[in-house]
């Protein structure tokens, strides 16, 4: 196992905090009715998003899920663009057409959140194929949840990527719940990482609340992919602190699981490590928090001040070329 350098660890700490505080702020704004739709946040799962993104280049691609804000924030997406999009504003990154679950920021390689589970698993091999044909040395990571691993596209996508030795990293974010259905009640065999063996590729189970462990596993998978040795599957075990959606009463699980999640808080954990090694003190941590809060408040102010789209803007952006008036 390799270790990230101290600067990178501090960057990962800041990045996790950025995801956490962004998500917490989004929840609050949603509860106050500022954000329409349904909101799925990744509070508690930050180490997966950040561990993955820290192992990637800016031009590497990410395919995300319905719980994807964290992936985009970690990949370096604009907080202003993201927040304005959550608000449904005209200058949101998708002009208000995507919203929380259908957002993309192609400028940072984030090819899209997805409202349909495991859909990215079959898109990824095509991105991998394009990378391979273009000899660009990029990789593509596709995130999916434990529930999505039971859909056909997961299997089709892993098979094709393995068959054609494509530069894809499959990252399963196992937060134990597919909406309200427990992983243990939906997944034969239990381990998703173990499914990799059937396709002849590396499969690894990691502590998804340990950002260093996630980073390390993804680094190895990314190196393998860049070498041209093909895909890997990583199952990162984590805990969702919040409901499936904002407002979910969570009658299906006890409070003890969230307590466990909080005890294993990935941010507090890294903070302890950094503090013990003299890489972070209280003043430095406070400065990081202050700067992250400022970025988020700037994004919120931007979103609040931004105009709503005009109704007729619903008719734009469908095609790249459509001169017909039929």
């Amino acid at each position, binding site marked *: 196992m390799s270790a990230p350098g101290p600067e990178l660890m501090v960057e990962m700490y800041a990045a996790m905090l950025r995801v956490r505080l962004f998500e917490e702020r989004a929840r609050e704004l949603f509860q106050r009715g500022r954000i329409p739709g349904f909101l799925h946040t990744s509070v508690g799962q930050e180490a997966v998003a950040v561990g993955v993104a820290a192992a990637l280049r800016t031009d590497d691609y990410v395919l995300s899920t319905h719980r994807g804000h964290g992936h985009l924030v970690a990949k370096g997406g604009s907080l202003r663009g993201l927040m304005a999009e959550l608000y449904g504003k005209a200058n949101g990154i998708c002009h208000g*057409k995507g919203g929380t679950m259908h957002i*993309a920021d*192609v400028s940072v390689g984030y090819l899209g959140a997805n409202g*349909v589970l495991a859909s990215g698993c079959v898109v990824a091999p095509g991105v991998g194929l394009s990378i391979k044909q273009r000899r660009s040395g990029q990789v593509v990571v596709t995130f999916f949840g434990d529930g999505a691993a039971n859909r056909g596209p997961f299997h089709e996508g892993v098979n094709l990527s393995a068959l054609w030795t494509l530069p894809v990293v499959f990252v399963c974010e196992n937060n134990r719940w597919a909406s309200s259905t427990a992983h243990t009640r939906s997944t034969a065999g239990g381990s998703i990482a173990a499914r990799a063996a059937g396709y002849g590729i590396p499969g690894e189970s990691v502590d998804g609340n340990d950002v260093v462990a996630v980073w390390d596993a993804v680094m190895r998978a990314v190196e393998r992919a860049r070498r041209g040795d093909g895909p890997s599957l990583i199952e990162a075990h984590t805990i969702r602190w919040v409901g499936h959606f904002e407002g979910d009463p969570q009658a299906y699980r006890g409070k003890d699981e969230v307590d466990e999640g909080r005890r294993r808080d990935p941010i507090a954990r890294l903070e302890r490590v950094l503090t013990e090694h003299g890489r972070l003190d209280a003043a430095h941590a406070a400065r990081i928090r202050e700067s992250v809060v400022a970025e988020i408040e700037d994004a919120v102010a931007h979103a609040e001040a931004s105009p709503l789209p005009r109704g007729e803007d619903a008719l734009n952006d469908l095609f790249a070329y459509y001169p017909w008036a039929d």
Partner: protein
Amino acid sequence: MKLDFGDALNLALREEMRRDPRVYCIGEDIVLGLPFGVTKGLIDEFGPDRVLNAPISEAAIVGSAFGAAVTGLVPVVDMHFADFVTCAMDEVANQIAKSRYMFGGQLDCPLTLRMPYGIGKSGGGHHSNSVEAWFVNLPGLKVAIPSTPADARGLLKTAIRDPDPVLVFEHRALYRVVGDVPEAEVLVPLGAADVKRPGRDVTVIATARMVHESLEAARRLAEEGVEVEVVDPRSLVPLDRETLAASVRRTHRVVVAEEGVMRGSAGAWLAWVVMEDSFDELDAPIARVAAPNVPIPFSPPLESFVMPAADDVIAAVRHVLK
């Protein structure tokens, strides 16, 4: 030159793959060119990196084509049989059709889906259906439906060059139909209907195999002095409404002929378009020729019963002339 419909498509693929190194073909059994010969021999000219024989994984074939299209390649997917698109319907309906829109125009998706489809030779319920209406009903997709070898070649080339996803419906009964194809590299634009036979009495708007059935009907009706104009829209999305309307201004009577089932079909949309654009020009209600609302059956007499043909077009023409 004389080419059959399948060879005209093969020529279009060769021309486009020569022109643009980003173009590649993917599908099941395409190295051998099965089942209809359209991709036959491409492997010899373009090699295995550009002619990808995929496992039987429709979701991965279509989904990966989407991923490739949005990151710099130009895929041409062979759906094998259009019926199998159901196994990749999320990829077509939710990813390919919607991504550009949902993402506010950030992505272009230059992707072509070749859809071999249609009734014939006892293909049965999973190999014979006309499913074009499903895609006409999905905003974000363009839908071409050629009837002749020249149109097949010209529309497939246009589809491959188009920056948006285009489905090309290839009726499998037409693959061995021979026709004149220009020596020159001629592109047929989307949204340009073609009058396949001029006539003053009745307009028959027909697609794919029904163009040929309608031309046969027109020949037989001409013997009785009835002059039928056969108009082929050639693409359903976009639709050349003006050519349809111009024809109705000449004939004032319309039959819409398709092979899909009657209910909720592409022909129902065409009939509504004619009604909206040309209501004041019409001297009779629009008549429709389509299959009855059942899946396509196997046994020859059953199959032939549900298959719309020239006789049905003739009956419909007589009906609108009453």
